[in-house]
């Protein structure tokens, strides 16, 4: 078991006092980000990314991924106690979590979020530990055509599985790619799309874009409704933990389904924890013996959403570390960090940066242990954050966002861009343009273009190269099917509908 030996080595790195401290700091900040409704995991990670510039890469990745784990735990607190989603992925947790809390069973609801979330994360890390190395080994044999096909698959899942208009998804991704192409031509090194401006030579930073779109945009959008944090007090007692463990035993099927589904959705590029939690809730309700009780405060409703969300969070890092493709928008920002730290994401990491990869995997175990312990025992402390009035929180989040944007290139131009991206994010959010494809496209723009151009050089300009190589062809066909799925489904339904009346 080479993986086990590597994992042990990873643990020896991860439990160094410095890395343990970084992990703890990351989880605490993550929970705070998760609890705050105006600040999401994606923009939160982007804001804190500049802090990692002084860290060695192995600690930097521990920091960022621990923020992600913390945010996954934290979102549930706000959803359950305040009936306001702290994170998009905890919306579904609210359905049953808040009714439970209102019945005076807040402790049970919270424990039902944390404990299954933790176990789901552990199972997913195990899957991760043993799936990642072989997957990376396969990916090592990929050439430019395969890489491009995988990247295309990432964007097709957005269009195919995402809710909302495919035209808007496509537009959002295209804008992201266009923004990424501003600056120097990656192949020839000549300036392009800069319109003669020198400041535009360095291009647009995905950090500024993600903080603006997700952070400032969210603040503007949520300012329309004056949010009032009228919450329920909640504390997890030992009794609640026992109750949830017993409930977990009774609902083992829901839990396992949620975990495996979540992991799979997380691995699928571009989706992440939010759709995973909704889908898991839907399935749990559909196959429940008492579906009518869902929404009134059933423990298994919380178990279903939280196990899927946490599993998806871990799953989202699998394609990131093995293929260089983020499984979720938050993973996209972390992936962007890898480029900044001077690492080339992708399968070669498993050969050249063993410390980095296995340190990350070991910290997934450690970060989730820290996360569940902190949340179980410190819920009342974290809930206090929501007692801070909005007029104090809003300027602080804005100021942190400004620091995050400025620190990328040390120019105030990025602070102005932050405002522009914030306005765009607000408008897009109101008009239902998905933001995730834009950010993912900005991060992946250069490598996508490089893969496409190199493939075309290999084939002398023929697009057939993507269909004559078996692995690439497989990915291409899958992505085409996924892309046209929204168009195909109504068509299929219509055909079926037409057949059915004829039978009758």
């Amino acid at each position, binding site marked *: 078991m080479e993986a086990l030996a590597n994992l042990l080595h990873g643990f020896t790195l991860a439990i160094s006092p410095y890395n343990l401290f970084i992990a703890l700091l990351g989880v605490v900040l993550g929970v705070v980000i998760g609890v705050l409704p105006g600040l999401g995991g994606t923009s939160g990670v982007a804001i804190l990314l*500049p*802090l990692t*510039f*002084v860290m060695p890469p192995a600690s930097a990745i521990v920091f960022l991924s621990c923020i992600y784990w913390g945010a996954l735990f934290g979102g549930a607190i706000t959803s359950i106690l305040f009936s306001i989603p702290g994170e998009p992925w905890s919306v579904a947790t609210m359905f049953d979590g808040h009714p439970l809390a209102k019945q005076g069973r807040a402790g049970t609801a919270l424990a039902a979020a944390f404990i299954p979330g933790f176990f789901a994360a552990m199972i997913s890390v195990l899957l991760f530990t043993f799936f990642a190395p072989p997957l990376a080994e396969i990916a090592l044999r990929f050439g430019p055509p395969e890489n491009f096909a995988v990247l295309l698959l990432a964007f097709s899942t957005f269009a195919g599985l995402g809710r909302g*208009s495919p*035209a*808007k998804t*496509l*537009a959002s991704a*295209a*804008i992201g*790619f*266009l923004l990424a*192409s501003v600056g120097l*031509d990656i*192949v*020839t090194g*000549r300036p*392009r*799309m800069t*319109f003669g401006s020198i400041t535009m030579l360095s291009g647009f930073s995905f950090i500024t874009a993600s903080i603006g779109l997700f952070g*400032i945009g969210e*603040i*503007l959008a949520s*300012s*329309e*409704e*004056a949010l009032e944090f009228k919450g329920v007090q909640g504390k997890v007692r030992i009794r609640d933990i026992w109750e949830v463990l017993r409930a977990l035993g009774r609902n083992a099927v829901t839990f396992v389904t949620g975990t495996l589904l979540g992991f799979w959705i997380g691995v699928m590029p571009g989706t992440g924890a939010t759709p995973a939690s909704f889908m898991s809730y839907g399935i749990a309700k559909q196959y429940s013996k008492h579906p009518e009780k869902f929404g009134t405060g059933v423990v298994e409703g919380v178990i279903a959403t939280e196990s899927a969300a946490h599993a998806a969070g871990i799953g989202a890092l699998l394609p990131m570390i093995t293929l260089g493709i983020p499984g979720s928008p938050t993973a996209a920002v972390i992936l962007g960090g890898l480029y900044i730290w001077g690492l080339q994401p992708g399968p070669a990491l498993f050969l050249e940066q063993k410390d980095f990869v296995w340190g990350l995997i070991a910290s997934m175990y450690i970060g989730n242990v820290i996360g569940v312990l902190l949340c179980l025992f410190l819920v009342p402390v974290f809930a206090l954050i929501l007692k801070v*009035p*909005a*007029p*104090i929180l*809003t*300027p*602080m989040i*804005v*100021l942190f966002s*400004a*620091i995050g944007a*400025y*620190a990328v290139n*040390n120019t*105030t131009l990025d*602070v*102005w861009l*932050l*405002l522009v991206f*914030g306005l765009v994010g607000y*408008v897009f959010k*109101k*008009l239902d*343009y998905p933001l995730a494809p834009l950010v993912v496209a900005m991060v992946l723009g250069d490598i996508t*273009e490089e893969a*496409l*151009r*190199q493939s*075309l*050089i290999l084939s002398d*300009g023929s697009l057939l190269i993507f269909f004559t190589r078996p692995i690439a062809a497989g990915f291409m066909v899958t992505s085409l099917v996924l892309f046209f799925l929204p168009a195909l489904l109504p068509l299929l339904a219509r055909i079926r509908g037409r057949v059915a009346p004829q039978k009758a």
Partner: protein
Amino acid sequence: MRRAEILCAAALLLVAAVALREALRLSIGWGDIGPRGGFFPFWLGVILAGSSLFTLIQGLRQPRTPQPFLRQEALRPVLTVLLPIAGAVLLIEVVGFYLTALLYLLGYMRWTGRHTWTTTLLIGLLFPVIIFFVFERWFLVPLPKGLLEAYHPF
């Protein structure tokens, strides 16, 4: 909502047009080393133009909806958040981060939050100080000082 939808799609169409012009200027053909610089942006421009045209036409064919983009009563709260943000961005350019943080917090807390002067001053002064030690000292992230660069005591 319908008008906003149409305007947004039209704006994106304009972005696509700019991108296409720039791509054509860079030439989209086949060069010495494969496709030229304009090749990738060109096809993105085409995709963006196509998808926004689709949204535009869909918007035009849609019946007028009574639901506005921004409700009348929501305008005020959005502006009370947006304008101070814009002001802070401008201030960062001029007087740097630390003074902006102080002024922004003071102004926002005092006038939108109606907090007492004691709370306002305490947080307004403490926040920049903490930021200074965490970012500038601990994580070595220098923050903008604006035109006051020379006058900063540290």
